[in-house]
């Protein structure tokens, strides 16, 4: 029995078809990554899962129930940017998730309830390695720490699904790898169903139980690949490398782009390389 069921979902803006007949099942606790070139509709699909948009046709079920038509606490999200509130300290950014649902009138707690919320938030932040920065504002944090904060903020809600939209796309390569390791560590503690969107094939393979390869114009699922490699995965291993080449081939072999062969590069005129 699949946890998230996507049945023949289409998304259209005016005449433009962005998603065409998507079908997908994601099991409970599974880590699923969507990978594809820009314009393949992977972010649109994530917005549908989030409830930020509604599909033109088809339906999405969460645990057998139709998905709520607007974002709610059942689905946590981390975006590439603007995921944390600049006006709140690190601690308040996380405590906010405990305050909002319990105080419909003012959106904030007082007294012992507030103390408890802040304690819980501090405990979680400690676990993701932000225990030393509780009183800092997000602008004082590095990009990696901001995304770590955004993940903690989503986790405090104990969402049923965690949606990640290129969460590490703006980070430098080293920080990105570190964050990928930490994301896996977090998931090892709490097996939360996760859907991650990325254009980085290596990231998709490193993290996912299953990689969904999408192709653009219109957005379609081209292939679904199970990643059977055991954790911790070695990026340099033969199997990893082979899978990466296979997926890259899938992604690039659509007539839009041909990877250059080494001999061809040598013969190209200089002007071409310069541009």
């Amino acid at each position, binding site marked *: 029995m699949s946890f998230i069921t996507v049945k023949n979902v289409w998304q259209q803006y005016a005449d433009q078809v962005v998603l065409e007949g998507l079908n997908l099942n994601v099991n409970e606790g599974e880590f699923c990554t969507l990978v594809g070139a820009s314009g393949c509709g992977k972010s649109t699909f994530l917005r549908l899962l*989030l409830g930020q948009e509604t599909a033109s046709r088809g339906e999405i079920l969460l645990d057998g129930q139709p998905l709520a038509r607007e974002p709610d606490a059942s689905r946590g999200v981390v975006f590439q940017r603007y995921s944390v509130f600049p006006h709140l300290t690190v601690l308040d950014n996380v405590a906010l998730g405990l305050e909002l649902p319990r105080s419909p009138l003012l*959106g904030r707690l007082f007294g012992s309830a507030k103390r408890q919320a802040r304690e819980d938030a501090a405990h979680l932040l400690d676990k993701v390695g932000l225990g030393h920065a509780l009183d800092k504002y997000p602008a004082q944090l590095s990009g990696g720490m901001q995304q770590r904060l955004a993940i903690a*903020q989503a986790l405090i809600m104990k969402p049923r699904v965690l949606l990640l939209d290129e969460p590490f796309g703006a980070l430098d390569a080293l920080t990105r790898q570190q964050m990928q390791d930490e994301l896996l560590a977090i998931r090892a503690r709490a097996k939360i169903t996760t859907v991650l969107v990325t254009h980085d094939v290596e990231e998709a393979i490193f993290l996912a139980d299953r990689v969904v390869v999408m192709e653009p114009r219109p957005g379609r699922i081209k292939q679904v690949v199970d990643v059977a490699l055991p954790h911790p995965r070695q990026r340099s291993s033969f199997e990893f490398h082979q899978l990466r080449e296979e997926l890259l081939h899938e992604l690039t072999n659509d007539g839009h782009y041909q990877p250059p062969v080494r001999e061809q590069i040598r013969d190209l005129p200089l002007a071409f390389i310069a541009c």
Partner: protein
Amino acid sequence: MRLINRHPDRPSRLLLVILPFALVLFAYFMGSAERLADNPNDKLLPSAVQMTDAVKRLAFNADSRTGEYLLWQDTASSLRRLAIGLGIAALAGLCLGMAAGTLPLFGAPLSPMLTVLSMVPPLAILPILFIVFGLGELSKVMLIVIGITPALARDLEQRARDIPVELLIKAQTLGASTWTLMLRVVLPQLLPRLLISLRLMLGSAWLFLIAAEAIASTDGLGYRIFLVRRYLAMDVILPYVVWITLLAWLMDWGLKYLTRRAFPWYEGAAK
């Protein structure tokens, strides 16, 4: 070295700051001394002594008719009107701007309306205000409110729209309702912007205040200036103008200081 690459060092920067002020004062007092040497009764460019005398008379001697100290009474009246006007405008502008910028259903009717309203020249409807609200305090305060609220509201509406949609989505995934989202996410992010907008609007607020006081009032800084204009009393007008400028500058500085103290995250986030 090219001019564009040359920067003043600290001492010369200070000198450059003082220089234009010193030049203006120098030119004024040269002209004043020259005219007074020609005609000791000249009223156009009073000397420093004459102006000091006038200020002493208005600030430290009780008026023989009312028993009040005119400069302080005028200042208190003007500042009270300004404060009430700015306070109401800030509150109204914040509510309207936040509603129009955050809630599409409110923005659809409000936004075009605010745009049109902000085009109405406030001074053109001053007579209407006097007719509707009478010649008392209310009409003067209303001129300030009507004059700056639409512009404030439009600015804050734009700022509210500038808040990344990701943050609004995120707040909803954290369990926010529309109301708590506005209270805990939109409002705190707009408050520093409100203070900045108010700073930019201070000039207009003073303009409307002086205009209203000039036409119908019995006290206030603008009233005094326009009253003594009949006697060509430049020795009163010039110190009053300097005093108004100083007050406006202090308010501007105070709002800037408040922004930095109350919203430490704002400057950091702007980087």
